[in-house]
């Protein structure tokens, strides 16, 4: 395919505003009469609220209102409706909103909120799923059986289980009967924070005309709109949600998080907008965390390396509310089969209420946790079988003719994991690794990976396209730009399809539910695939409209006409033509009479036959697969235990590269995020559920000094049949193989098998000391 704009490094149009500090983020917005809120958080992670005394806070300077959860009679959520905007009679985690002060200034609100006095009766605290599952554990949600939930999901009343997902493929007993070798392990992916540089925030304004207006640092304006409309009993059309520029997301600005709390607070001061922006501590403890996943996995294989069986049990500590975590645990389950065909699978995911902040989306969404386990076990199995880890994997890769854990057939158009593996093997594993020296041990590691979209079956992305009077084009989509560059993707795809230069196409800046097409939410690395396809469709419809008007004017049939971006013309005689700008608002004859429609189109695209799980936990829940491989060359400092990544290589079969510079940025950034999770990052809680490191200074955020010294990044292009110009998703994928690749390399370097993240220098030193010698194990 000869493409003019797709595949080119066209500069993103939002860069100038961002580089000059003029891009408007949530906290930059000031509205007339705006008030500020500060929120009180509890002293205990699980406790009954006995009383709240607000008198002293109410008397503070500038205070307009003090708000508690008293009288709140609704719960909200998109999947399992278990969330409350503010604690009513008990608190379930350390960051839960207990009360709030609304004041004229942020400072006044923060001073006054400290004056609220609350009496609690502490309850038992569970930080880990296993503890909350023990017999006799106190219930975190006493009435979970009453919660509304999507069909097929939901809590087990009388327990702390918020959901149990089970997947069955084949006959697991048969699979292990056939196995000649088995390996197993228990793997822990601890709590992490997406930790975007811009913290969460929201502004909510209850207008006198009974409409509600919201601004939020969120990627799901329509879910916010629908949920707020539902609880305040308004038509959805009377709630308007704006999404300004977003300073990163990485998952935790999806779903509905802080908005209902700010709406609850603002509902007490109708007529005035109320702003709240999280402190970094609140961003850690009062929004969403990621992971919290423990996986027990057992793999069976024949001596020749043919895989026969996979048993996975996921224990997901989902925090105090499960609405945002439920699909993560499901994804962690069915993606734990990785890039391999297992004929027999039995898999269970226990989503368990605990007393930590709720767990939600984190870039990778269950994929990195499950594949961390399977990719570690593939290396362990290869050693046991005395096979090359590459040969073992290659023997079992998903390829045309195989079926995934979900029972979906794999086709050529799903891409080629074996080719990705070859690229990484060539980049990292050529020749011998350096020999151990006085200062360092050296190692190399590999992991294959896959990702499928994860979202609601009805998830759809739309596009509104408008040809202007001068032939330029305005495009609105509902896709949230979080930095990944999707608006530039829209522009390049539109330019390609409309055959006009990108400079003539203006893509939306903010999302506004009043003007933007409906989009479920911008998650699951689905925008390029679905949103891009919607853009193609809207462009094609616009071209068809131009031709229809031109056919009328030229008195021919539409099918004899062609379009080149500037003109609509006769195929057989291109000199018979009409300029596009004369057709965009209908064609005006010399006497002013105008014929033809105004060229404005809409479109939407969803994944074909995308479904929820059937009774066996299977279904068309992937639809589009992206395969990849990652590998690394590391050094471990003998004195400090520090892992230094000399080279990290990634190869993904992305179907089609839309913008090479942007895709490299996505992959390099994703790898870095994976490195952080692997070697440094963990949000820690003590046994009382108190967060020990809710600050950047205590949460080990990777800096430029931690970056891989060199990254090899290659994209393969096996076209996806449903994606725009063959493209498929890539946003989350780069984080998925990082942890197993590095841990496999650590094993290669020092012979120690790690099963838990993060692998800090202290853990490496302790493991070596435990081995007795402090010397390399091989």
């Amino acid at each position, binding site marked *: 395919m000869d493409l003019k704009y797709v595949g080119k490094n066209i*500069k*993103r149009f*939002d*860069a*100038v*505003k*961002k*580089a*000059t*500090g*003029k*891009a*408007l*983020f949530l*906290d*930059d917005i000031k509205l007339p009469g705006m008030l500020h809120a500060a929120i009180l958080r509890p002293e205990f992670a699980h406790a009954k609220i006995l009383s709240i005394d607000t008198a002293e806070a109410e008397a503070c300077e500038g205070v307009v209102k003090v708000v508690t959860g008293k009288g709140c009679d609704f719960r909200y959520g998109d999947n399992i409706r278990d969330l409350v905007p503010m604690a009513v009679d008990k608190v379930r985690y350390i960051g839960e909103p207990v009360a709030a002060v609304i004041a004229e200034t*942020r*400072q006044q609100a923060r001073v006054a909120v400290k004056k609220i006095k609350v009496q609690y009766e502490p309850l038992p605290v569970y930080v880990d799923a296993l503890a909350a599952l023990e017999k006799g554990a106190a219930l975190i949600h006493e009435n979970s059986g009453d919660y509304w939930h999507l069909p097929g999901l939901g809590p087990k009343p009388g327990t702390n289980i918020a959901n149990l997902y089970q997947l069955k493929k084949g006959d697991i007993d048969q699979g292990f009967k056939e196995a000649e070798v088995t390996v197993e392990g228990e793997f822990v992916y601890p709590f992490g924070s*997406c*930790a*975007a*540089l*811009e*913290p969460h925030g929201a502004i909510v304004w209850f207008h006198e005309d009974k409409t509600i207006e919201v601004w939020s640092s969120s990627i799901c304006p329509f879910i916010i709109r629908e949920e707020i409309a539902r609880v305040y009993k308004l038509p959805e059309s009377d709630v308007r949600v704006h999404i300004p*520029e*977003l*300073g*990163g997301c*990485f998952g935790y600005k999806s779903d509905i998080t802080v908005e209902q709390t700010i709406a609850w607070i603002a509902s007490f001061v109708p007529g005035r907008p109320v702003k709240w922006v999280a*402190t*970094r501590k609140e961003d850690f403890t009062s929004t969403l965390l990621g992971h919290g996943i423990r996986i027990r996995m057992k793999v069976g294989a024949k001596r020749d390396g043919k895989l026969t069986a996979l048993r996975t049990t996921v224990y997901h500590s989902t925090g105090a509310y499960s609405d945002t975590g439920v699909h993560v645990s499901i994804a962690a389950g069915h993606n734990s089969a990785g890039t391999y065909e297992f004929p027999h699978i039995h898999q269970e995911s226990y989503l368990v209420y605990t007393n930590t902040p709720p767990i939600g989306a984190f870039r990778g969404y269950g994929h990195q946790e499950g594949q961390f386990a399977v990719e570690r076990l593939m290396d362990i199995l290869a050693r046991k079988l005395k096979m090359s880890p590459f040969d073992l994997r290659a023997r079992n890769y998903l390829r045309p003719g195989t079926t995934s854990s979900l029972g979906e057939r794999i086709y050529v158009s799903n891409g080629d994991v074996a080719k990705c593996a070859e690229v990484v093997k060539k980049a990292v594993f050529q020749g011998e690794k350096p020999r151990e020296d006085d200062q360092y041990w050296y190692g190399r590691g590999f992991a294959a990976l896959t990702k499928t979209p994860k979202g609601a079956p009805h998830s759809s992305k739309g596009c509104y396209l408008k040809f202007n009077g001068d032939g330029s084009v305005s495009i609105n989509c509902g896709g949230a730009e*979080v*930095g*990944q*560059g999707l608006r530039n993707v829209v522009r390049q795809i539109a330019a390609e399809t409309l055959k006009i230069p990108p400079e003539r196409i203006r893509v939306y800046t903010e999302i506004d539910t009043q003007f933007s097409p409906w989009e479920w939410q911008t998650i699951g690395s689905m925008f390029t695939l679905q949103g891009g396809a919607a853009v193609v469709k809207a462009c094609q419809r616009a071209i068809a409209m131009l031709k229809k008007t031109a056919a009328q004017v030229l008195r021919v049939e539409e099918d004899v006409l062609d379009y080149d971006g500037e003109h609509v013309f006769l195929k057989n005689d291109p000199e018979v033509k009409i300029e596009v700008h004369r057709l965009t608002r209908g064609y005006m004859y010399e006497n002013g009479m105008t014929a033809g429609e105004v060229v404005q189109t809409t479109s939407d695209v969803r994944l074909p036959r995308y479904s929820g799980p059937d009774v066996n936990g299977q279904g068309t829940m992937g639809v589009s697969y992206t395969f990849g491989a990652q590998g690394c060359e590391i050094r471990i400092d003998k004195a400090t235990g520090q892992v230094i990544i000399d080279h990290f290589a990634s190869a993904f079969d992305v179907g089609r590269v839309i913008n090479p*510079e*942007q895709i*490299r*940025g996505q992959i*390099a*950034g*994703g*790898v*870095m*995020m994976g490195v952080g999770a692997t070697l440094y990052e963990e949000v820690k809680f003590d046994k009382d559920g108190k967060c020990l490191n809710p*600050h*950047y*200074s205590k949460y080990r*955020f990777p*800096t*430029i*000094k931690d*970056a*891989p010294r060199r*990254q090899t990044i290659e994209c393969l292009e096996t076209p996806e049949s449903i994606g725009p110009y063959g493209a498929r998703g890539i946003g989350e994928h780069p984080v998925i193989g990082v942890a197993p690749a590095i841990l496999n390399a650590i094993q290669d370097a020092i012979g120690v098998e790690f099963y838990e993240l993060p692998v800090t220098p202290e853990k490496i030193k302790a493991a070596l000391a435990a081995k007795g010698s402090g010397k390399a194990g091989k």
Partner: protein
Amino acid sequence: MAEAITFKINGETKTVAIEGHEKLIEILREKLDLTGTKCGCDDASCGACTVVVNGEAKKSCVFPHAKLNGAEVTTIEGMTGKDGGLHPIQQAMIDGGAVQCGYCIPGIVMELHALYSRNLEAGEAEITEALSRHFCRCTGYEAIMKSALLAQEYLKKGRKKAKKGK
């Protein structure tokens, strides 16, 4: 409690009434409407709020107002020319592909402005040291380093041109 402080901001002398608790970032964002300076944390970790005070890169989230009297402060808004033209460092951030979500960019521009104003010959180690004071969650730092080097190149070219012009 109210007092007034006078300092130079982006070339203009301003007097601001303060209540006493404010850090520099609040004065910039809330009193002077200079919202280009971003807040990512409150413990001087992330560098998003970096501005230049008396020639040095400072984290405005912890910079006390008491030290501000008579100081000379430059923020991201002061980098763009009066004609709207971009500063070479800003241009380099764009050209090098460093801008993704963009939240960290103003702070990084100011850090590099301080560094290159002091030493345009800074080597990679010194540049890395300066950039290590800035968190970025998007890029993996690759494009930021590339842009920092590009900025140095642009500034050197600009200096050469200026010399020729004399």
